[in-house]
């Protein structure tokens, strides 16, 4: 990304915070994400005036107000479209899209599909709390079957969408997953996303303390985490468990993963391998949930391929076809 060459190493994370009071619920996972983003910005020395945070509607969409960069809080689901326009106008801006599971995968699902397929150079951060928080707790497109909510009193009968599998299906060339509370991992993931030219998609499992508290406890809980997560790293074997005693490998004769004791035939993560990324993205309990950069395979981004000139003569244009002279 071109903007990373212009840095200001002097800035601290707090310098990326605006003067606005943060108004998320106490204990909301969004605080941790805000902290991680500000730290990542400081680590990367992002230039504030060249950085733009764009959001749609939802709890996550408040994000731009809390950053000291440029920010645009837009319309529900439409942030990818607006961010695309910003990049078309000025490809040199460093543009982040902050979205949620309802904003990005329900009302804005269409825009998410197309911004990923076009590969516009944006950092798209999807806060997945599997619930509509701002509207007081309705089930969302990522809610699991059976989720009881004000609009599903008997439990949801819908199948959830997997954010990362959707992104891969849409043709995203950078797909990663992290967790609000996993600060070190999250910051590193955000930096990787930023370093990627083209559309980067990061799903963050984020806890909604009010409407969906502990929904990820089976993945993120201290006791279960080592067995419930596999931290993927390019070139390293896909091992997990308290003592990395388990691994993932391809089931012989099948195109699916299986859990085996750590052994030489455990798969080595190759983040440029899309079919592998798809297998990893789809893992859900009782398999470990994959965290980290599932896929990274850069290509020229959309806005860099747009051809535009400025010098054309208007007189030449207006006289470009058959003309005729009327003499007095």
């Amino acid at each position, binding site marked *: 990304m071109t903007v990373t060459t212009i840095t200001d190493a002097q800035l601290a994370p707090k310098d990326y915070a605006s003067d606005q009071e943060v108004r998320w619920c106490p204990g909301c996972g969004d605080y941790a994400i805000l902290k991680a983003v500000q730290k990542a910005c400081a680590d990367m020395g992002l230039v504030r005036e060249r950085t733009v945070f764009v959001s749609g509607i939802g709890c996550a969409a408040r994000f731009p107000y809390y950053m000291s960069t440029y920010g645009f809080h837009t319309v529900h689901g*439409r942030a990818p479209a607006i961010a695309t326009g910003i990049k*078309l106008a*000025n490809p040199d801006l460093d543009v982040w899209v902050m979205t949620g599971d309802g904003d990005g995968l329900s009302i804005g699902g269409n825009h998410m599909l197309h911004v990923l397929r076009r590969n516009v150079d944006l950092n798209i951060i999807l806060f997945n709390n599997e619930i509509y928080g701002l509207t007081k707790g309705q089930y969302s497109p990522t809610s699991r079957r059976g989720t009881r909510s004000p609009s599903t009193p008997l439990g949801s009968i819908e199948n959830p969408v997997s954010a990362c599998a959707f992104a891969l299906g849409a043709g995203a060339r950078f797909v990663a997953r992290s967790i609000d509370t996993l600060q070190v991992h999250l910051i590193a993931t955000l930096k990787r996303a930023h370093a990627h030219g083209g559309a980067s998609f990061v799903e963050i499992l984020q806890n909604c303390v009010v409407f969906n508290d502990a929904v990820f406890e089976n993945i993120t809980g201290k006791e279960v985490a080592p067995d419930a997560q596999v931290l993927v790293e390019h070139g390293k074997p896909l091992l997990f468990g308290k003592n990395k005693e388990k691994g993932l490998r391809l089931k012989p004769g099948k195109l699916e993963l299986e859990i085996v004791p750590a052994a030489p035939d455990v798969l080595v993560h190759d983040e440029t391998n899309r079919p592998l990324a798809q297998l990893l993205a789809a893992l859900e309990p009782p398999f470990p949930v994959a965290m980290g950069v599932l896929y990274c395979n850069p290509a020229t981004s959309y806005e860099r391929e747009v051809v535009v000139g400025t010098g054309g003569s208007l007189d030449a244009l207006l006289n470009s076809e058959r003309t005729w002279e*009327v003499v007095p």
Partner: protein
Amino acid sequence: MATSTVPRPGRETRDSVVIRFAGDSGDGMQVTGSQFTLETALAGSDFSTFPDFPAEIRAPTGTTFGVSAFQIHFGGTNVMTPGDAVDVLVAMNPAALTVEVSDLKVGGTVIVDTDAFNERNLKKAGYAKNPLEDDSLAKYQVLKFDITKLTADAVKPHGLSSREAHLCRNMWALGLLLWMYGHERTATIEWLNRKFAKKPVIAAANIAALNAGHAFGETAEMAEHMVGYVVPKAAVQAGRYRTVSGTEGLAWGLIAGLRAAGIEKMVFAGYPITPASALLHTLANLRAYGVVTFQAEDEIAASGAALGASYAGALGVTSSSGPGIALKTEMLGLAIATELPLIVIDSQRAGPSTGMPTKAEQSDLFQAVHGRNADAPLAVLAPTSTADCFDIAIEAVRLATKYMTPVIVLSDGYLAHAAEPWLIPREAELPRFPVTYRTEPEGFHPFLRDPDTLARPWVKPGTPQLEHRIGGLERDYDSGHISYDPDNHARMTKARADKIAGIANDIPLQGVALGEDHVKLAVVGWGSTFGALYRAVQIARDEGLDVSHIHVRYLSPFPRNLGDLLRRYDRVLVPEMNNGQLVKLLRAEYLVDAEGFSKVTGKPFRVTDIVQRIRGGAPPPSEGSGLGGEAG
């Protein structure tokens, strides 16, 4: 320039003529009409054209719903519209005859290809008997030629297949019509050579057919029926002219506006929709002029990308037709709330819903002025002609950037495709209104208003020390921060309204297009009906009627003298191609007792519709002039 306008012996003079070329979708009627238009222009006549093509891309051959037509009205004076009634109808098949013949004047000429009037085609067109063989066309002069055979003979030396030869029929017909009106063929021959540069045999065959049609008239094999005409040149302002369609006018006007504002880049975002797509296609070829075109995934994204571009300091433009504009509504709300420039071109078509995509209507006025949630004012302009599309696009850029507001331009399906001669402006003489992006950090906040325009500053992201956040949430008048304060919301609502209302002080006073400002009747219109209303008022005035024509280009806000002007007339008549929209706005705004006059047939007003109504009569029933709606 054409030289053969001198009447040869036997040529009769006509002040103006209306010709309609009609045939199957695959018969090439649109190119035939366009080439006839070009030769007409080069011959020095004024003209107005109107293509009428079917919604079906390739309707089954020979069917009535596959008929494609192109009408041209040309002459020396008073060519304000494509013409009410047709003098000469070229009908390439029975379907074209049955669909179009009702618009032919009594005594008018119909030229048919007899070969096409076979049993199969007659049946498809719904004819029980061949109309060429009974007296059903007795009130017209019917010129029956075997155009198919004459074309086949003409192209024979070029060794075409019979299908390829058949495709040259339109050039034969064009050649004949060019002869009838004493037009040259040079530009058409050049065009054919260009178009078929890679297929010289096809070019030569088409030219042979064109020449054969022309020679057929010249040698006057049917001299007793065939008359040549001469149409006088138009007395117009000296200068260099070209043909311009509304689509071209808007495209070039947007670029001229971009230059005038000194903005580096335009981001034009659209989504395919009839009849607006032509603007996307036109601008997609103008990248050299700072234009980025973006075909979005939907209408919402198109408006979003345009607004994002404006936020980033470029000129954001989006375009659609009524159903698509409906989808852009939420983004218009955001543009109003965040006070960013945004230009929205609406090529109106008949509705509601999908309606009649290829037919024109002026029924999005309410949508443009009021069609949003909450109190959400913006500016609305409407071009009066294809040439005015250029000027109105420049004006839209001026107002959008000066007042930091969305501007909706109401074009329509008729203007988009119609064409007229246009005196080409010079870039050096075009207006200049350079925008200033705020760079000064001292005292800045994003909603700091200019005391005169009430516009907020435009800041490009990338500008140091001006980092700020904006969005759809209500914001504090004095700081720009989010605010739920009740009094502040009232103050902001008023500020948004006052800003748009204030544009009235920055636009021309409403003038009278024709007539005086104090007579009995004012005929008040807007948009593409200008030509028909003007000509109708002209005719009525020639008859001694006390009537004037007023045409409103600025529909939100209205020119500040409009109310006073309308009150000077005893009666105000508002003809519109909708069920009564401007008439209601005028009544609501000014408490004037304006009468509506609707036409919602999907076709433009005929001059005679208006003249009859001015005279006090009902419109002619044959045309089914809308609901004749006394709206309001």
